[in-house]
């Protein structure tokens, strides 16, 4: 177990390093510097700015400095928000994004899985039909369309929930619903099909032949098996939530990371773009790692020790 964790950790570091390098090279190969838009800038001022941010250093030196900064958890200054560092932007934005994302994951699991269970237990009855209809709907509607729809109905027409900001808890409802709609449907469908598959297995018939209660058959013998495929999609699902949240944060004007990232792109604020990319990459790698650990815990056939 320990060996496995160590191995995974090393491979995580290598992956991070590759991501950092690629992001850095990409950012520096895009034509036009961060100050290119401000045409009126006199040459000597621009030179001073370049010097201040060490942009006139040779590329390899900038790279070494940047990697060195990351090792000290310092993602550098923002070029556009003068006086603000990328770290400060993340510290201000991540809690908002994290709350919306975390709540979404909770909602996805707490609603998606039970819906899937109900549908599987009531296969081909009306409960199943309702779940399947909703899930199909949820999967076909993109999150930004759902967000706009929700805004129109609940903010504009019914005036029940705020259309932007998170001054009160109510502000979280629409973003979380918009963000999790797709994944709830996805998880519900997956839970249903996975359970139905499990129900057909010999060990389930065996459990029944042992005279166990329906409750034990479902939750002890069935669900643990049925959850395995769901856990495997959780990694990509979390990634989807993160990128999806960029759009949702923009629509609901939430002061999260997504907003900073999008602004960073339109401002050519390279350090912000790089910093957030690196931060998200690291976050995602850790999430996938955790998901893998849960996977190994659920399925004893996966030997954590000798998996390459």
């Amino acid at each position, binding site marked *: 177990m320990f060996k496995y964790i160590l191995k995974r950790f090393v491979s995580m570091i290598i992956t991070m390093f590759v991501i950092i390098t690629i992001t850095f090279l990409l950012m520096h190969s895009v034509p036009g510097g961060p100050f290119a838009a401000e045409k009126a800038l006199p040459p000597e001022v621009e030179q001073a700015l370049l010097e201040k941010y060490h942009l006139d250093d040779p590329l390899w030196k900038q790279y070494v400095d940047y990697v060195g900064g990351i090792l000290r958890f310092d993602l550098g200054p923002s070029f556009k928000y003068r006086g603000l560092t990328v770290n400060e932007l993340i510290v201000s934005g991540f809690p908002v994004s994290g709350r919306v994302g975390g709540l979404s994951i909770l909602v996805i699991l707490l609603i998606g899985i039970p819906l899937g269970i109900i549908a599987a237990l009531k296969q081909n009855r009306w409960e199943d039909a309702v779940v399947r209809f909703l899930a199909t709907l949820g999967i076909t509607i993109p999150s930004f369309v759902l967000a706009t729809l929700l805004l129109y109905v609940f903010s504009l027409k019914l005036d029940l929930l705020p259309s932007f900001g998170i001054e009160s808890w109510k502000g979280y409802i629409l973003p979380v619903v918009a963000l999790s709609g797709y994944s709830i449907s996805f998880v519900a469908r997956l839970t249903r099909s996975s359970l139905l598959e499990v129900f057909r*297995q*010999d*060990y389930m*018939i*065996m*459990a*029944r*032949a*042992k*005279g*166990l*209660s329906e409750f*034990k058959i479902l939750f*002890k*013998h069935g669900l*643990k*098996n049925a959850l*395995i495929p769901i856990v495997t999609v959780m990694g990509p699902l979390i990634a989807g939530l993160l990128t999806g949240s960029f759009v949702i944060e923009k629509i609901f004007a939430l002061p999260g990371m997504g907003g900073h990232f999008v602004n960073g792109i339109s401002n050519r604020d390279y350090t912000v773009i790089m910093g957030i990319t690196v931060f998200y990459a690291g976050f995602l790698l850790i999430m996938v790692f955790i998901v893998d650990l849960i996977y190994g815990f*659920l*399925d*004893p*056939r996966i030997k954590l020790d000798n998996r390459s």
Partner: protein
Amino acid sequence: MDNTLLSIRNLHTSFFTHVGEVKAVQNVSYDVRRGEILGVVGESGSGKSVSYMSCMRLLQEPGRIMGGDVQFKGESLLSKTNRQMRNIRGNRMSMIFQNPMTSLNAVLKIGDQITEPLREHKNMSRAEAKREAISLLERVQIPDAEKRLSAYPHEFSGGMRQRVLIAMAIACRPDLIIADEPTTALDVTIQSQILELMKDLQQDLGTSIVFITHDLGVIAETCSRVVVMYGSMVMEEAPVDDIFHRPAHPYTEGLLRSIPKPGMEDKRLSPIPGSPPVQLSPPPGCPFAPRCNYAMNICRRRLPEFTKIGENHRSACWLLSGHAPSNNFRRENI
């Protein structure tokens, strides 16, 4: 005292598939006696498994019991509530399935799975159940029993898993164990070990065992009586000696011919020509008629009734019935 343990009477079971009603079990009647090993033999699809899934009330959609009755220790199983049925399953009547690789739950520890019936039916505490599980594993000759309790199924070989399943089946000292092809998925050497083990256990515990198989070799080694099934019906029922030395039904005879002879290089069976019937729209008459060398006109028109041949021997074939026009040929054989 009545020595009938399980009595199946006119059992009919069908599957309602999208192409129509598949009659998987038709008019099946026979008894399982206390303390005996009964073999149920027949080709694939003859309804062996479905009849016992019906008895245990474990049929899955779209299967349905259409008629008849199953009495267990004098009580009808078909009129019991689900809760009563649960108290019988795994407790008074247990099952061992064909595939030990898939019958154990891969994500639960062996110990957990063996103690389940004990905790469910015998109200044992965790510690008591664990102690009992160890002695059960020792009983089925699994070495290092205590340590093995915390292992997962994938850490066991096929033969070991089948031993675990046997341990599970005998856990509550049931009156009846239904072993549905318990050795088919195993290597030949392991097969005979498992059969020996089951015979020993049967001797020790006095349990009745039903051996479902298409292997007459298994029957010869283990059973005292045999029921031969074909096309979802019973063809012949007899003591094991009669089946091997005085078969009364052409299908039984065909089965015997298909046993590989000792010393034969090619161990494959020389099967009866033709293929088993489809129970979707069975023609009237004897189900074996299309493949039977002795088939007569009446065979294709009317279902043969059982003829009693000996004390415990009966067979459903027109050749044996006084109504059949000419049956001298067969009479000599009996």
